[in-house]
Every structure is written in structure tokens, then in C-alpha cells.
């Protein structure tokens, strides 16, 4: 029993990261009908800029470094949206997806040019200690990830539900024309959605940084985010994305704990294929939202 609980709790650590990325992708999709294949690279970029740029090269203290790296990620996303995705509004989904794949390669290659391909370790932020909570061993950084992840998702909920800006964004994704007629600056909402989701991704990268080695291929976590979205029921479902992310983290850990560690990395791929084949509306998907995306 303790073993199972231990697996679930460690799974939630990864699950928070998947949730952060998946919610970001869902947000961009809701706002602009674009699936951002560069989300994983924003995650990687956040970690690189924070740890190697701000903390190591510029020797900034933690909080300014955090603020600057989040700003850098947001700026990158806004520029990518403006230069690449805005001209493609209304273009076929194939074109848009290929364009964001292009963006992801530019970011990955750019990071490789600056920092090289060798996986880089760095001095951990907090001491890599573990705490024991009711018989469960949790690394401190894991607790930080869970708290920060859940906190951010909660903040996001409050933002969309109760603030004027959040309501404006929801209105834009509901009906672009009507929002425009109500005096909402629709293109600014697009930029805002990209910036916010870049911040979420970068936070994820910065949170996981101390537990892994940084490498340009980190962005492959994107597939897990996709799996989270598909489990959660589609690209426009923010709550589903968050829950799907957590679930995926737990499932992955259960697979690695009870079956084999090697299978862990293939779990998201298999889940994508299986869920799409058996129940393409996801676990919490509503059919009507989905059907419109099913037909190309």
C-alpha cells in the first residue's frame, strides 16, 4: 500500500509538469485554433535561460532571474505568434502545425548553438533533501513542484473565472467576431494567450531543472503533454488537460513501478494511440466539442 501511494505521489510530481504544458497548449488552441508543437521547446528554453543564462552567466539572485527568464519565454512566444502564426490564421491545420514544428526546431537549434548539446548539470537550488510525509519519501523539490504547479493552476482558474482580462480571453475564444464587436482587442488576446502559456511551460522547465540534466532534447516532453490532452478530452479543455496531466504522471509511474522502468518512456505514446483508437473523446471529453476537430 505504501509502495502504491509512493508511486502515486511521485507520479504527481511529473504530472504537474505535464499539466502545466498541456494547459498551455489548450490555452493557445482555445484562443487561436493552433496546436503549438513548440511548447516543449519553450519549457526547455525557460530552464536554459534561467539556470545557465540568468543564474550562471549573469549571476543574478533567484527571484530576478526567475522573472527575467519567464519574461524571455513569454517574449519568444509572442514574437513567434506574431511572425509565424498570425499570418497563418485560417490556414489549414497542416500548415500551422508544420510552422510550429519549424519554430520548435529554431528554438532547439538556437539553444544548441548557445549552450551546446552536452547535458549540463548545475548547482541545485534547494538542497536535494527528502522529507518523509506519513511514511512516504518525497524530495523537497518534488514538494515545491506539486505546490507551485497546483498553485499556478489554481491562479489560472481564478484568472479565467473572475478577472475582466480572463473573461475577455474566454469571450475571444468563444466567438472571435462577437468579441471584436464588443471592443475587445482580439489580437492582443492572442498574444496574451501565447505569453501566458509560455510562462506556464517555462515555470515547468525551471521547476524540473534541479532534478534532471538540461539538454536541448528536453522538449520531447511535448508528447507527454499531448497524451495528457488526449486523455483529458481534447485540445480546448483546460480542466481536462490539467487532470489528464496528473493522471498521465501517475499512470507512467505505476507502469514503471509494477511493469518495467523501460516502459515508462513509451507509456505516453501507447496511451495516445490507445485512447484515440478506443475513445477519441478522451475520458472527460464532450462529444460535440470533439467532433468538429475530428473531420479535417
Amino acid at each position: 500500500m505504501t509502495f502504491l501511494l509512493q508511486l502515486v505521489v511521485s507520479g504527481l510530481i511529473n504530472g504537474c509538469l505535464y499539466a502545466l504544458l498541456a494547459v498551455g497548449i489548450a490555452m493557445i488552441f482555445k484562443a487561436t485554433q493552433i496546436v503549438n508543437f513548440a511548447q516543449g521547446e519553450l519549457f526547455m528554453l525557460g530552464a536554459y535561460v534561467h539556470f545557465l543564462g540568468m543564474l550562471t552567466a549573469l549571476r543574478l539572485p533567484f527571484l530576478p532571474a526567475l522573472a527575467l527568464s519567464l519574461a524571455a519565454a513569454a517574449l519568444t512566444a509572442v514574437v513567434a505568434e506574431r511572425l509565424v502564426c498570425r499570418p497563418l490564421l485560417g490556414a489549414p491545420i497542416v500548415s500551422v502545425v508544420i510552422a510550429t514544428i519549424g519554430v520548435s526546431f529554431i528554438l532547439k537549434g538556437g539553444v544548441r548553438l548557445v549552450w551546446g548539446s552536452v547535458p549540463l548539470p548545475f548547482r541545485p537550488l534547494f538542497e536535494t533533501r527528502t522529507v518523509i510525509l506519513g511514511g512516504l519519501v518525497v524530495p523537497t523539490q518534488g514538494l515545491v513542484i506539486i505546490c507551485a504547479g497546483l498553485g499556478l493552476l489554481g491562479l489560472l482558474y481564478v484568472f479565467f473565472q473572475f478577472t475582466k482580462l480572463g473573461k475577455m480571453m474566454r469571450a475571444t475564444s468563444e466567438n472571435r467576431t462577437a468579441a471584436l464587436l464588443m471592443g475587445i482587442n482580439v489580437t492582443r488576446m492572442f498574444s496574451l494567450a501565447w505569453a501566458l502559456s509560455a510562462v506556464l511551460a517555462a515555470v515547468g522547465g525551471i521547476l524540473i531543472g534541479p532534478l534532471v540534466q538540461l539538454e536541448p532534447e528536453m522538449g520531447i516532453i511535448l508528447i507527454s503533454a499531448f497524451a495528457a490532452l488526449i486523455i483529458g478530452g481534447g485540445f480546448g479543455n483546460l480542466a481536462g488537460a490539467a487532470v489528464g496531466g496528473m493522471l498521465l504522471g501517475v499512470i507512467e509511474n505505476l507502469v514503471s513501478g509494477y511493469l518495467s522502468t523501460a516502459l515508462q518512456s513509451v507509456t505516453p505514446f501507447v496511451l495516445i494511440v490507445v485512447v484515440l483508437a478506443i475513445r477519441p473523446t478522451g475520458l472527460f471529453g464532450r462529444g460535440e466539442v470533439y467532433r468538429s476537430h475530428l473531420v479535417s
Partner: protein
Amino acid sequence: MAALAKRTGWGWSRALPVLGVCVVLLLPHVLASSWLFIANLALIYAVAAVGLNIILGFSGQFSLAHAAFYALGAYTTALLTIKLGAPFWVSLPAGALTATVIGALVAIPALRLGGLFLAMATFAFNQTVEWILLQWVSLTSGPDGLPVPRPRLGTFVFASDVSLYYLALVVASALVVAASRITRSRIGRTLMAVRDSPVAARSLGVDVERYRIVSFVLSAFYAGVAGGLYANVVQFLFPAMSGLLQVTLFLLIVIIGGLGSVAGAVWGAVVLTGVSEVMRSFKAVQEVVYGVLLVLFIVFMPHGIGPALRAAVARLRDAIHEWRLAPLGSRVAPVAAGNPRPDDPADGQR
């Protein structure tokens, strides 16, 4: 040349293809060995890109699994050669067959998915194949890569790169010609009808699902042959053949050549293979260049370089035509004599 053309009654339109064939046939005897390798690779990529164009350009289904079929074809061919000592005329078709069968198996669940979700599922399939190639070390030797012996035909061993060039050339030309025939046939036209409007195609009695499977199978077959050729020509396989960079390269070839153009895919392969091999040792530069090219082409030349060039030439021709039609007086530069610009420093000296 003009006199020759007059005497034989051959215009440029007939002479150029013959010239092209001569160049292609004589190419391996002129090229340096490193460029010959690139030429071989270009032939292989041309086959793969034509296959991707069948599913992406003609059938309009967004499959990101092309590199997986390519790697499956390559590894099957290689393993048959290594473990069973099969000659290439057995192992190459067997590799293609494996890719085709798996393509059909992937196509059946993929039928339910359109657009985005198909992309996602095929992307996941692609990564799964790469994972299997990495993990099944006893069979594929995993991340170390798999060396393959040179292909043989009876007692004849393809010992030189020149002979490999001709081998690849024969296979590639046969497949490219076949593809251009298929895409102009009833099948090709039906695929395009299904792409442009599945509903309209269905109402005309087209079995949409069957044609979607057909396009999947055809493209997997091309990818499998390309992979088998790669195993024979390059003689070294690695799991990243099924990786994201490989998919992106194929996508880029098709996009640059133009979606739905067989000839474009071939040209794209020739150009892109050269570009990517020059940058081979600089992975970072390769990634940035691929990314920038993808974005530029999707945003500014979504129909590929052919139509873009044609449009540019047409614009130029129009401009020249207008210039020649214009009355002589207006041809003179806008700054006419006796009306000097006040800020022209040369004025004072005159």
C-alpha cells in the same frame, strides 16, 4: 545547336529531357566520392519524399509516421541480409512489404481520425518505433547502430559507390515514374477528390475509407523501399532514422518541392539532401536552418518553390513586356536633363 535543332526537327522541349537523362547517367563518373554519396542519398530521399507527398499532398492526411515506415523498411532489409544472408532483390522487397503491411495496420485505426488527431497518433507511432529500435538491443544493436554488408546480386557484389548509384537510380526512377502515373490515374484523381471534399466524394459513390487506406499503404510502401535502399547504399542504420529530425527533413522536402507534385518532391530531395549533408556535422545549424526554411516556405510559399518561381518569372516577363511596349520617351530615366535634383552633389561640378 540551333542548326542541329532545325535539321533534326527537335526543339529544346524535346532535347532537354534527353540531355537531362545523359547528365543523370554520366553523373557518378564526374562527381567526387563525397558528392556521389550525397547523390545516392538524394535518390533515396526522393523516393521517400514522393511517398510522403502521396499521403500529405495528394490525399491530404497529415501523417507524421513516415520516418517510422522508412526505418522499418531499412531495419527489415538489413536484418534479412545480416541474419539470413538474403540477396538484396529479396531483402529490399521484403523490407518494403513489412513497411506496407504495418502501414495498413496503422491506417485502419487512423481512419477514424482526421487532421490534428491523425498527426498526433502518427507522431506517437513514430516515436514508439524509434523507442523499439533503441530498446531491442539484441536485434537492432540499439543506439550503437547497425552495420549492413554491401548488397550482392548472385556473385556480383556492389562494391563501388558508382554501382550503388545505378542501383538506387533504377529503383528510384521506376518508383517516381510509377508515382507520377498513379497520381494521374483514377486513383490519384480520387485521392484528390477525397482530400478536397470527403463528403462530396462520398456522395459520388467513392469509398472514402478505402482510398484513405490506399494512400497510407502506398506511402508506407515508398518509405519502406527508401529505407531498404538506404540500408543497401549507406550500409549503416541507427534508431534516429525514425526520429523527429528525419520526419522534419521529409516534410521540408515535400513542402519546398510543393505539396501534390511528384516532380517537386524529387527536386526538393536533390536540393535539400545537398543542403543537409553540407551541415551534417553542425546539428544546431541544421536544426535552425530546417526550422527557418519550414517557416519561410509555409508562410510565404505554401505551394512550394515551383509555383513561386513560375509566378516570379511571369511577373518579370510581364514587366519586360510592358517596358518594351512603352513609348520610347518614357523609357528614359525619370530624372530628365535640365531638371536636376537640388541635392545632387555632382551638379556643382558640371
